[in-house]
């Protein structure tokens, strides 16, 4: 029988305050198979690990259980420590008596009893654990970045500059993302496009980056180091290989459609490029609005194109690519106005959101940078900015703070004041949050030196009165009601995960949080990785953030990819399925249960074998096997039966 050592961690008082560690040691010491048990204040510390290693040697242990925090934290630590003491790392298991015991129970007796059962069930597991060796697998040193905003661009550039190939996939016709829509950026007032377009051009021309714009990821299979992805390149109805981006077709198109890039304030043709600096700078035909596609006649773009680049017969194309790592940078959208009843459900033309105001401020926007309101083109003299529009409102809208709205509103008010000198901006706010380098100073400049009136309170209603908007609010500092007759109202709406990202996360099997943002592997210590190996996160897809943070995170994600690619081979968990050849009847039921095609029928022997490199160790096949020939390594039915028994204190 194995000689098992149990090491109970106090975790300071995190465990010891609720679980009687001495009693635990005393009890488990008597459990069959346990040759040694002790407790220590911080098992993960150097002396703690040394204690485990010395005990392995001294007590001739061939199995180790560390009863401490969740295995997601220190399983690696203790398996490595065990390995260094000459034990196979798969002979070491973690009993989770912190997250799943001491932190969630108050009664000391009950928590202690539960801790004992958790440990004893793992003693049973270790008794049957086999010594395993990780399987080594080859690695495709090529990355895919999904999302071509500033996060995706930065990540792609960093990986590409390290010498690895990158596929940059963007669903829109051009890369650039929301940052390309912004006018100036806070707090430095850099022109957003001026600082972004050099990066866009660099990404577009980089020898290691392949742009796949107007494309979406459709399917994925494989695992870290070896993914196969299917990407749908949507039909642009323009042959981009022939097109030079001269722009004649877009000018001559007779159809006018609201421009999404300009937040529906200007128009574009049915054949269009998103914006003048688009990368790649080729047009696409919007099939739903094109006169030829909808009514069967027009074809003007075809006639004016000397290069014969228009191709109405073009079809979507699905390309298959091999990549080793994936960076997800699908970004954000802002909360749609039609959800905000108190501000007119998006039906009042002069109630716009912050993104639309960016377009009004932008030199490339629908008004050429003049602030003119959408309804009649009048320059607004009284303007109300409403912060936290739909944010920090768990009952009705978004429970969270989007972090950027206070700052972009301050910027908007300042830029407005600089362009309309006799205008009066008002800002309604709950709090002003300015966490960031030079942010507080910027806010002070706006609120104290630029003549912007900040009113602490919320707006209860906005409604049309003649050609003005009446804003009802409250000043919570004076306790008085406030009414402002405004020409334009700008709502600082918060960030939500970008449209369609949820479906993509589903396709990629990535976990997201309750607000739909991507979940990171650890909120503090692994913020740029997904718990899914081989996936890295960048930008607002993971949660609201500003540009500097987005870029930093994108570089962080890229460095993780580069670190992965610096390895010659990857190691694959050996917790895979195996087949007892004497029991296998060759019924093939397991083949259909396997989601990874890891099972092959051996015609000659009449049995099914497992391709261990493809097996991900889910265990579904084990259950499907009617003869009990299939087991999962280190999680066999025998182990489960004994674990169940021990967990019940039997």
């Amino acid at each position: 029988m194995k000689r098992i050592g149990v090491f109970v961690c106090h975790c300071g008082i995190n465990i010891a305050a609720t679980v009687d560690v001495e009693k635990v040691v005393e009890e488990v010491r008597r459990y069959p198979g346990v040759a040694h048990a002790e407790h220590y204040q911080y098992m993960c510390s150097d002396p703690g690990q040394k204690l485990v290693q010395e005990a392995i040697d001294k007590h001739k242990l061939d199995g180790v259980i560390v009863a401490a925090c969740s295995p997601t934290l220190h399983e690696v630590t203790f398996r490595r420590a065990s390995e260094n003491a000459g034990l196979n790392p798969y002979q070491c298991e973690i009993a989770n008596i912190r997250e799943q015991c001491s932190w969630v129970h108050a009664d000391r007796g009950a928590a202690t009893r539960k801790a004992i059962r958790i440990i004893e069930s793992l003693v049973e597991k270790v008794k049957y654990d086999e010594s395993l060796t990780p399987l080594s697998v080859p690695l495709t040193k090529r990355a895919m970045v999904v999302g071509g905003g500033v996060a995706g661009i930065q990540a792609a550039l960093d990986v590409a500059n390290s010498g690895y190939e990158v596929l940059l996939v963007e669903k829109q016709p051009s890369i650039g993302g929301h940052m390309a829509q912004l006018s100036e950026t806070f707090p430095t007032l850099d022109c957003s496009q001026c600082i972004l377009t050099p990066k866009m051009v660099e990404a577009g021309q980089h020898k290691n980056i392949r742009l796949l714009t107007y494309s979406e990821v459709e399917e994925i299979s494989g695992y870290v180091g070896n993914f196969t992805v299917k990407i749908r390149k949507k039909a642009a109805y323009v042959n981009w290989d022939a097109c030079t981006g001269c722009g004649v077709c877009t000018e001559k198109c007779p159809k006018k459609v609201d421009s999404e890039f300009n937040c529906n304030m200007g128009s574009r043709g049915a054949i269009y490029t998103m914006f003048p600096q688009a990368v790649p700078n080729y047009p696409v035909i919007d099939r739903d609005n094109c006169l030829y596609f909808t009514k069967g006649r027009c074809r003007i773009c075809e006639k004016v194109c000397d290069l014969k680049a228009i191709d109405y017969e073009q079809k979507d194309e699905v390309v298959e690519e091999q990549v080793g790592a994936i960076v997800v940078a699908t970004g954000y959208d802002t909360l749609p106005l039609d959800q905000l009843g108190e501000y007119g459900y998006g039906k009042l033309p002069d109630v716009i959101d912050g993104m639309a105001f960016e377009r009004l401020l932008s030199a490339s926007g629908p008004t050429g940078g003049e602030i003119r309101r959408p309804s009649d083109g009048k320059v607004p003299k009284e303007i109300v900015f409403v912060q936290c529009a739909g944010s920090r409102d768990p009952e009705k809208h978004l429970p969270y703070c989007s972090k950027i709205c206070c700052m972009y509103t301050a910027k908007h008010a300042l830029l407005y004041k600089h362009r309309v000198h006799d205008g009066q901006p008002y800002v309604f706010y709950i709090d002003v949050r300015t966490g960031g380098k030079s942010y507080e100073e910027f806010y002070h400049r706006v609120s104290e030196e630029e003549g912007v009136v900040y009113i602490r309170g919320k707006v209860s209603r906005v409604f049309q009165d003649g050609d003005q908007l009446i804003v009802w609010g409250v000043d919570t500092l004076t306790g008085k009601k406030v009414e402002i007759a405004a020409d334009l109202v700008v709502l600082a709406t918060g960030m939500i995960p970008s449209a369609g990202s949820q479906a993509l996360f589903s396709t990629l099997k990535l976990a997201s949080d309750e607000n739909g943002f991507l979940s990171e592997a650890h909120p503090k210590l692994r913020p740029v990785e997904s718990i899914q190996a081989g996936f890295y996160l960048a930008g607002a897809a993971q949660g609201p953030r500003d540009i500097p943070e987005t870029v930093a995170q994108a570089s962080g994600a890229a460095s993780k990819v580069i670190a992965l690619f610096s390895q010659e081979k990857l190691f694959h968990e050996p917790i895979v399925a195996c087949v007892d050849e004497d029991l296998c009847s060759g019924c093939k039921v397991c083949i259909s249960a396997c989601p990874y095609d890891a099972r092959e029928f051996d015609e000659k022997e009449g049995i099914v074998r497992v391709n261990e490199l493809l097996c991900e160790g889910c265990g579904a096949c084990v259950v499907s096997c009617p003869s009990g020939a299939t087991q999962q390594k280190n999680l066999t039915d025998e182990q489960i039966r004994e674990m169940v028994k021990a967990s019940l204190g039997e």
Partner: protein
Amino acid sequence: MFEPKIVCFLCKWCTYAGADLAGTSRLEYAPNGVNIRFMCSSRLDPEHILWAFQRGADGVFVGGCHPGDCHYQDGNYKTLRRMELFRRVLKQFGLNDRRLRLEWVSAAEGKRFAEVMDEFTEQVRALGPLQLGSGKGGQHVGSAKKSS
């Protein structure tokens, strides 16, 4: 008061991580369940549930990822189908199938994990002790298949 014994089979990616989040968030809940970590809920053989009942469990909890979120593509759908079939078997054995609970709890749902644990504990407490392991009517719950 009767303290039910509950065995919880949790998938590593969602429910086990949700249970960890409940811990990190210091959410208190009933200490009756002991968790057994699987890679995927589809590793769970209905037989494991029978073993638990045979060995003295009053309730069995199975936690997996929400539909569409399975780390292994569709393991949770396999679990769902197996559980639905198995409920019928349980009833044929004369067991109240309210002693078996399948829930999808994501890694972000620490609060829900705590709530479900409390709820299920109370549900099983109300049903009373099963006492299959004690020999009271438990003998006929034999091994459903494999001899191992």
